[in-house]
């Protein structure tokens, strides 16, 4: 019982912490619903991505929904179509705050497909 109480206490602390004012305000992009539960994604998106990466590249198993392309399509800002361009861009904003550095967008497009297509026409 005491254990449960401690657990609950800890959890409520972390929730309170997560909503603290100094956490980054992110431009979540299009909105709607994430491919998994938001709280789960916060913790596990990197595992989801790396799993999908190996499935796709090594075995050819493509699942459009959890592909990195799909994250970008939805999470890219509605104002500049990017997930990394600004301080509050979705992937970059949180990673800067958390001091995480990813190299994914050196190769992968960080902009919405529509924005890239437009650029091609110019």
């Amino acid at each position, binding site marked *: 019982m005491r254990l449960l109480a401690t657990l609950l206490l800890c959890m409520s602390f972390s929730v309170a912490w997560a909503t603290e004012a100094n956490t980054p305000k992110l431009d979540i992009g299009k909105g709607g619903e994430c491919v998994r539960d938001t709280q789960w994604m916060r913790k596990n998106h990197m595992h989801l991505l790396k799993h999908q*990466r*190996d*499935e796709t*590249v*090594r*075995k*050819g*198993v*493509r*699942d*459009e*929904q959890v592909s990195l*392309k799909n994250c*970008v399509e939805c999470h890219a800002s509605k104002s500049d179509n990017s997930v990394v361009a600004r301080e509050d861009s979705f992937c970059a904003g949180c990673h800067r705050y958390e001091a995480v550095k990813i*190299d994914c967008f*050196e*190769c*992968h*497009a960080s*902009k919405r*497909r529509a924005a*890239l297509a437009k*650029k091609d026409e110019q």
Partner: protein
Amino acid sequence: MSDINTQRRQFIKTSVGAAAIAIAPGMMLYATAHGKSEGASSKVRWGMLVDTTQCTPDCNDCVTACNKENGLSGGTKATDSQWIRKIEIKDVRTGVAHSLPMMCQHCEHPPCVDVCPTQASFKRADGIVLVDRHLCIGCRYCMMACPYKARSFVHETLEDQNPDVPRGKGTVEACSLCVHRIDKGQIPACAEACKNKAILFGDLNDANSEIYKKVRTVASDQIRADLQLNTGIRYQGL
């Protein structure tokens, strides 16, 4: 590791092969209805038959299409990526000349895979030889091992890549047989672009495919067949 896999595949093939053939006709190799796919199948061996008699020296359409599809600059300097290139060959005694496209030959026994220290170079179940850029450390052993000079190294930072074809500095890349298109049920961009229909793409294992029938009726060669790599790309009319 690849040895074990081949044996295992062979075992599965022989044990369930008969049953599979009975149900296979009409079954799709990919199920894209929900944006999900089954993955590459070892029953398939993707390949190409290039008819050099239909390939003309002044035409570069396959190269242009490849560059556009995969976001390559089109430059031909030593430091530019070229996934497919046109080459001219000539028999010095008879003067007979041929023009043909050269690219990754998607070997059954790829030397690039043998030498790769990180297992970034690998052969997919359906015979496509790829570089897993997530594992590539840019050592370029594979480029030296390849008898076809088919691989390129990305020397400079890239921007605005095609979302379907991520590419980046410090890694080796080559013809992927347009794997992103194949997995959608499309054919490689070069084969689609060839107006002379000189590039026939298909499944070398599928008895109903055009390529299966053609490699069994017309004479075709593998380049550097002496190396016994069993290439997936074959040339007709050399």
